[in-house]
């Protein structure tokens, strides 16, 4: 049951959205967004450690250079 200020038709409207994948990196998880040419870019870091957000390789939009995710949407 949803209790939100967003109208349900906005919440459930599916316009495709970005293609996302989630990868584990040590203690944290990172959400990647698929870009053109099979590239993946960092979209979001899931960690409670504030220092993880200062890492330049995890800044939003940074190119994910290894371990391309094999999973699709999260």
């Amino acid at each position, binding site marked *: 049951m949803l*209790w939100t200020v967003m109208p349900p038709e906005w919440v459930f409207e599916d316009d*495709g959205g970005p293609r996302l994948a989630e990868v584990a990196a040590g203690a944290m998880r990172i959400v990647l967004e698929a870009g053109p040419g099979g590239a993946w870019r960092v979209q979001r870091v899931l*960690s409670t450690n504030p*220092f993880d957000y200062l*890492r330049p*390789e995890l800044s939003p939009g940074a190119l994910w250079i290894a371990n*391309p995710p094999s999973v699709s*949407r999260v």
Partner: protein
Amino acid sequence: MEEKASPQSQSSRAGSSVSMAQLEAIRQLGLANPPGKSDSAFHVLTIIGQIEGHLLLPAKNKTTKYEHVIPQLVAVEQDPKIRGLLVILNTVGGDIEAGLAIAEMIKSLSKPTVSLVLGGGHSIGAPIAVAAGYSFIAPTATITIHPIRLSGLVIGVPQTYEYLDKMQDRVIRFLVEHSRVSEEKLREAMFRTGELVRDVGTVLIGRDAVELGLIDELGGLDKALAKLRQMAGMDPGGHAGPAGEPGAFGWRAPADPGFVRRALAGRNGT
């Protein structure tokens, strides 16, 4: 829907200046540097967008997922290096059960917790905000308090209303038990007409939420961190903890108070 980056593009991006240790970290973790040990005394949990529970929402929604947050809270509770948790909210609400679950987890953490509502902490965001040991709201942030609605197929029988009423009571009870707001005042705000365009309820802006008793204090990051330091038994005034102890976000105070003065004097050659 599987896709992999081509090997050529990967190797060209990695470059030739990468050391063997870095390559190993990249191979194992996908990171240029392995996750280092952290001195951060306080961890931060952000509650953003829709709170997602049993239902996977369309990808355009920015969501806070139950399955991410709950294990993070367990880890925060168990890591002896972590002295407290700052919960930062900017949420439009979402799944009641997932929201209440997160709120109950924050409430039952044995470590100091402080919440800060920035932007919005609407609907089910409110119980999460009050679940912390102490709550702050930014002067411009808002909390919308409104009745729970049913969406989709609704069967027009009295039981439907009773079920809705029970769900409503769960939330009201949690809010009343974990803040200074009285049930009477909260219900009055929740069912007020004339404030919201598409709904009944009330928009509480910054100070209103404090005056109603829902949130403890008006403030921002500085006050929230000072409170967390105080609750954790650290010096609430400065940026550091007690001498030699890791302060908030890892800043260490010099053990000797004269250290800075002498260091500056030495640099100036005096």
